[in-house]
């Protein structure tokens, strides 16, 4: 009895630093965001006025905010679908098929993930350059005439952002799926092969169901991180006002001296990402298969 009590105390002591730090640096600031969204103040001013839900009401009527959220949703949906499709396909190919230089491909795909967004923006500004840019030059070569697509201008600008984001994200998720795919026992594939299942059937009937838990978890991660990554890419790559997303709207309001209003936008985005992850979790719920 006595030993379990002191054991509990020891455990509490071990957990306390992390818990306290988490509370001070995560929970408190988050609560503060909610509080500040009910006030109007400048970022650096000492005074603030309570305005109730006025910030949220203004937000619902703000065309710029609605456009920004539309862009955010568009990016989340398209980038998620494309990234997951390619990540799973590449992972399946690299683990199941015998390809020369597997490790080489694994590293090549992973590299974009360790680059900072600023570097990626630099790379893509060379790719998207209207005159003599890589993409336009390749297209010109294929078409046999000069192609002049303005990648970072309307209406292509959102496509450019999607391409860059997919390019950056594929490698990381591919490596994750490769890890879980290589955990699927070889014997399962062998017996499936004996039963006459082709490669595609094996992929859909074996691989996919067995790594489903992994896909579910990464999907939630990915959606939350895309909200943030979309902001970083748009900020680093394109002109302000071309393809604003939720978080760039939030920062713009702060720079315009509307700190409370930008916090209200932050609250809406926070709740949005929370609900979206819950929804995704609910929709992707399947019976867990044991290997």
């Amino acid at each position, binding site marked *: 009895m006595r030993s379990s009590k002191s054991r509990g105390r020891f455990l509490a002591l071990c957990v306390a630093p992390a818990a306290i730090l988490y509370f001070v640096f995560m929970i408190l600031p988050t609560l503060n965001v909610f509080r500040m969204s009910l006030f109007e103040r400048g970022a650096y001013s000492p005074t603030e006025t309570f305005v109730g839900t006025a910030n949220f009401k203004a937000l619902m009527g703000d065309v710029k905010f609605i456009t920004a959220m539309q862009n955010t949703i568009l990016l989340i949906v398209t980038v998620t679908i494309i990234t997951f499709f390619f990540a799973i396909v590449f992972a399946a190919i690299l683990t199941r098929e015998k390809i020369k230089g597997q490790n080489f491909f694994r590293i090549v795909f992973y590299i974009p993930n360790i680059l900072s967004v600023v570097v990626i923006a630099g790379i893509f500004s060379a790719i998207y350059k209207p005159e003599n840019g890589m993409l336009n030059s390749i297209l010109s070569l294929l078409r046999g005439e000069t192609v002049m697509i303005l*990648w970072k*201008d*309307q209406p292509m600008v959102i496509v450019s952002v999607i391409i860059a984001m997919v390019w950056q994200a594929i490698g990381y998720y591919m490596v994750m799926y490769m890890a879980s795919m290589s955990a699927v026992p070889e014997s399962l594939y062998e017996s499936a092969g004996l039963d006459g299942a082709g490669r595609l059937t094996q992929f859909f009937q074996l691989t996919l169901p067995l790594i489903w838990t992994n896909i579910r978890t990464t999907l939630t991660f990915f959606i939350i991180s895309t909200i943030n990554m979309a902001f970083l890419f748009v900020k680093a790559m394109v002109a*302000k006002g071309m393809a604003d997303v939720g978080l760039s709207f939030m920062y713009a309001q702060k*720079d315009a001296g509307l700190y409370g209003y930008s916090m209200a936008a932050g609250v809406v985005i926070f709740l949005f990402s929370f609900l979206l992850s819950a929804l995704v979790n609910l929709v992707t719920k399947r019976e867990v298969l044991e290997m």
Partner: protein
Amino acid sequence: MKKFLSLLLTLALVLSLAACGGGNDAGTTPPPADSGSSGDTQAPPTAAEDVTITVAALASGYEEAYPGMWQEVCDAFTAETGVKVNLICDKNLEDVIGPSMQGGDFPDVIHLATGREKGLTEQFIKDRNIAELTDVLSMTIPGESAKVSDKIVGGFTDTSVTNPYGDGVTYLAPMFYSPCGLFYNAGLFEEKGWTVPATWDEMWELAEKAKAEDSYLFTYPTTGYFDAFLYALMYSVGGADFFNKATTYAEGIWDTPEAQQCFDIIAKLASYTNPVTPAQANDQDFTQNQQLVLDNKALFMPNGTWIVGEMAEAPRAEGFKWGMTALPAAKAGGNGASYCWLEQAWIPAAAPNLDAAKQFVAFLYSDAACAIFAKGGAVQPVPGLTDNLEGDNKMFYSIYDNGADAAMGNFAAYNAVAGLGTVREVFLDPVNGLVNGSISKDQWISDVKAASDQMRANIMG
């Protein structure tokens, strides 16, 4: 014993956390690297020798041209007055001083102009968070016998750039100024035998000539560069009266013929702009737009004198020579106009060492400080400074001697309203849309009118 030990450990943990949490207020823990030793400023100001002021200055092109410029000025100030200076000099000054200011820790003097994307100075103006400088103007410059107001060229402390509330009180000290105008390749004009247009009609004629040469009339680095352009345009079209009314959002001002002419000129210019411009009008690629002028793919771009240093390493067409002209006159026989871009230095109202900060601002106009700033190519509105300029700068700063009107001032400050947007978002950013066709001229004008009405309703002063 064990119990005692665990109690002791818990206590130590709680104490260390408490120290972390309350540290910033009490000034016991050293603040994060960039905010420097602001803890020292808490010491009671017994003698000048014990005071340390914190100066935050933007490391702009001038600092790049002469690294250590600001440090040298601070050292000279310390040598003169004994007040120690802790300098924060950074390209992204807002990101460096912003977080600690949100925590209530303000520098004593900030050199950061209005019109930057992060709008930090504008936020201080909107919050009425800047200390008055009236007594600085009548102060004697440390180490000299002259008063500050004697060393500032007349007119520089009379505009909305330094007196944001229109009440004649100076809050921001006028520091480096630079004429803005249209930059072009003078070598190309000589080669083709073209003359620099004096009116907009001549400008449109030139546009057709440029088309024949497979070039375009116009480009711009980003839409932000249109602020100086718009100010100069309003001044050249409607003169000082129209300029003042427009920048204070006077009722019906955008329906006047002068305003219509401004809109027409910008819309027409958009149609003559090199079409790749908006795709590169972002912080990542704007130098590519500037490169268009160096490569003769566009004739003119709005810019400032720093462009020469900024593009010094860039490849260029054969025979390239920088040229700068004021905006053409609105009608034949009229005067062109050039906007005078002015950087400001100011003191936050919550600065811990107000007196020493004011001394520092006064010192910025001393002969010693002016000489140091001049090494970086920075010119203050102090009489006689432009006489010593050399090279391209001599030509740039002589623009007003050649008959162009000087436009000074900016859009009046207004209380921020949710959904209204900044001056740049309302007036300037849509130019990208005009060039790529995603917004019509009428739509832009009606947006400007609607926003202008709201700005007038919330104007400060």
